[in-house]
């Protein structure tokens, strides 16, 4: 199907967002080398930026997103404040969860990124709840939930797809098939090599897209979100992409053929789109340099903010379990 024309300012916006996400995560890679700077394991979506940006750009402000362990791109695309994200990643009190979430459980209710779970496959049932609330209150909103090819094997995902289709919930399932679930390839963990076909099993549209082509993702997302919003029920997008950095930053990818990584590096969604906009005259070299500089400055400012923020006092760990009054 031919793509709907995308206005130049939207094209520039898509690229700027991908650049910001890439710079943000590259900075995290860099900070991982600094002993003691980042607690826990950093799980990055380098190479998957086009999925986050293309899907989120097609949503309205009052729509909801539900994210997973590989969340930085989703949240930045949604407009989360990079300062508060970086501070949370460092475990600082000024972070989005005041230090309690850490890098793995970042949620940002201020931008309707309401829930994030690192339990693989946990997003879809909760997203069905959010979509139910949108239907129940007739808000006109849609919920989009991101999950991976690994999560596609979880029973909770199947339960959520069945319920969402049965009740015609306004829920967009976004399967980011990044070719790896831990150290297993889809051919080793998934009964089908085309996860979008699962849509048919649940009587909803299921479409696969090149997840490294932001315009393809955006175009498909707009159509699928329109379907969800129209009251016809959920839809499934499988975005085929690649996990460039391994499961987490401590993963040396010893089980991956180098040629595979080289193959996907050539399909880098950011480089591809940069080239496309340059050659199409949508953006000039000067504008591009400015865009890069702004992204770097934004990320550096976030790091500076996070570094100068304090750690939370240890005993503040006791708060926020329940709405006050707390009961120990």
């Amino acid at each position, binding site marked *: 199907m031919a793509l709907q024309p995308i206005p130049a300012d939207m094209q520039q916006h898509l690229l700027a967002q991908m650049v910001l996400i890439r710079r943000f995560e590259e900075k995290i890679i860099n900070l991982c080398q600094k002993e003691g700077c980042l607690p826990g394991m950093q799980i990055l979506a380098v190479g998957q930026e086009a999925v986050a940006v293309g899907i989120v750009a097609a949503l309205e402000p009052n729509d909801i997103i539900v994210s997973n362990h590989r969340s930085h791109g989703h949240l930045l695309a949604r407009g989360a404040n990079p300062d508060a994200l970086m501070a949370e990643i460092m475990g600082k009190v000024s972070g989005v969860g005041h*230090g309690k979430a850490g890098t793995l459980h970042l949620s940002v209710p201020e931008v309707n990124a309401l829930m994030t779970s690192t339990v693989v496959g946990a997003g879809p049932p909760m997203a069905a709840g959010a979509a139910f609330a949108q239907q129940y209150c007739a808000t006109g909103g849609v919920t989009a939930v991101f999950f991976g090819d690994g999560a596609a094997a979880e029973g909770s995902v199947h339960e959520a797809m069945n319920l969402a289709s049965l009740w015609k919930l306004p829920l967009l399932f976004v399967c980011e098939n990044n070719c790896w679930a831990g150290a297993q390839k889809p051919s080793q963990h998934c009964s089908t090599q085309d996860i979008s076909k699962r849509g048919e099993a649940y009587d909803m549209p299921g479409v696969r897209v090149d997840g490294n082509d932001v315009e393809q993702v955006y175009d498909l997302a707009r159509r699928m979100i329109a379907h969800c919003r129209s009251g016809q029920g959920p839809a499934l997008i499988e975005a085929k992409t690649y996990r460039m950095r391994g499961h987490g930053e401590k993963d040396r990818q010893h089980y991956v053929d180098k040629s595979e990584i080289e193959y996907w590096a050539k399909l880098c969604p950011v480089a591809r789109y940069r080239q496309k906009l340059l050659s199409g005259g949508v953006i000039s070299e000067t504008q591009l340099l400015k865009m890069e500089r702004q992204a770097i400055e934004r990320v550096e400012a976030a790091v500076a903010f996070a570094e100068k923020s304090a750690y939370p006092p240890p005993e503040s760990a006791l708060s926020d379990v329940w709405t006050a009054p707390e009961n120990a």
Partner: protein
Amino acid sequence: MAEMSMGQALNTALTLAMQGDDRVFLAGEGVGVSIHQDPNMPTHGLLEKFGPQRIKDTPVSEAAIAGLAVGASVMGLRPVVEIMFFPFITLASDMLVNHAGKLRYLSGGKSSFPLTVRVKAGIGFGAGCQHSHNLEAWIAHSPGLKLVWPSTPHDAKGLLLSAIFDPDPVIMVEDMMLYWMKGEVPEGDYRIPIGQARLVAEGTDCTVVAYGAALYTALKGVKALAAEGITCDIIDLRSLVPLDKACLLSSVRKTGRLVVVHEANRFCGYGAELAAIAAEEAFRDLKGPIQRVAAPQIPVPGSPPQEQFYKPSAESVAAAIRAAIRG
């Protein structure tokens, strides 16, 4: 005041909550159309009253049911979902333990999850261990989840209303054996505060703590000792999380003895926590060994005599009280 069964009292609470607040909806397997047509079932007749938009029969999908509650509650609704039998909560446990109980904390207190999960429980109806298995210790061990368990129609109505309008996730366990038990229930909306135990009887020799259907076993056991001149404080916990520690400790300090009664397995059961709290915080007031009356470390067996063997009995409660007093 009107006399009604516990099932009807729960039904009244659900009706009031739904009439008073459009944010309240029900979901679960058979909450609308049930295989049972008994007016003592808590959701009986609600579909006719409130319609299919608010009384949602679900697929047999416990993870989706609990996930629905998590996601709908953070959006501002007040979901009341049902888990048909206590052992099936294992299928919903990721949504409850890792999400309902943790997401508020992970958000740094920004998000709230005001959901209620009604869980049907009980031992003694011959269904065996995959329909009868009290797992309250699992829930109590999971931060972020409140846990209430009524033993009378009066408390059932007041606790359910408190649960539905509580700002945090509440698991409410309902002993199915008590659905038909009648009692006086006040009219209208009233709340039993979550975290408040009830002193059912006062005595001098021992503190006996129970909740749910086990309360009646405890009462019978204490009654059997009256002839021996033994009297007891009997505490109905009503709320297991948060626990009314003040009520427990003030009674134990007075009587110097503690017997805990529950139908769940003894090993790592909820009673172990009560015993530990009494030992840590009232050690110098104790005059005898703390006793637990609970089930052996076996699944609930199917055959009626085996099932009776599994459950605490009035005789075992009386024996435990005597042992606590004997020292």
